[in-house]
């Protein structure tokens, strides 16, 4: 079964609104990462948060991590049409930390 599960599977909002995506996982992690994928393309790394961190910012992105609940959230503020993409969380496990385990993704649509 998947280590990471994103919620919701799909999200549609108006341009300028904030978008929040959640990720839950099952086993202990070394780090958690978020990636973005435009339709039919490869994934692009957005942000990494380590297990001893609680919050991280990068531009309009804010990521939180709650290891006690085994969950993370990605917030995109002031969304733009260009943010339309699929977003994946990926967990780097404590053992075999070279590998990442990806969730199924959230499809985000920003309506102009």
């Amino acid at each position, binding site marked *: 079964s*998947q280590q990471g599960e994103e919620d919701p599977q799909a999200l549609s909002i108006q341009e300028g609104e904030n978008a929040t995506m959640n990720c839950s996982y099952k086993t202990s992690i*070394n*780090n958690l*990462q978020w*990636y973005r994928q435009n339709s*039919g*393309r*490869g*994934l*692009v*790394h957005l942000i*990494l948060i380590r297990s001893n961190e609680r919050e991280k910012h990068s531009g309009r992105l804010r990521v939180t991590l709650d290891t006690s609940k085994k969950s993370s959230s990605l917030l995109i503020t002031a969304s733009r049409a260009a943010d339309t993409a699929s977003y*994946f969380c*990926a967990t*780097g496990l404590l053992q075999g*930390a*070279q*590998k*990442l*385990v*990806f*969730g*199924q*993704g959230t499809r985000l649509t920003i309506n102009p």
Partner: protein
Amino acid sequence: DVKVTQSSRYLVKRTGEKVFLECVQDMDHENMFWYRQDPGLGLRLIYFSYDVKMKEKGDIPEGYSVSREKKERFSLILESASTNQTSMYLCATRTVSDTQYFGPGTRLTVL
């Protein structure tokens, strides 16, 4: 900038053919990965390599093999392609900070 290139963006093959998917990186990264991506299943790890001539099975290695003769090149081989191997194939490398850089993907159709 890290560059990860894949040999083809689109590929159409017939059942039973031997298929080679190639991935080349220009950043001297030791770890390289092959994933397949299917709707509703996300990315699943097929194989990865942590050094030249070293490989390790991922979650779904059946029907696939890999080759890493040079550090910059990691090949995925479908020994006898089947229709259930129709998928998007993504290659990635791992940086020292644990993030991964992905290639553009190869969309393989097996008829």
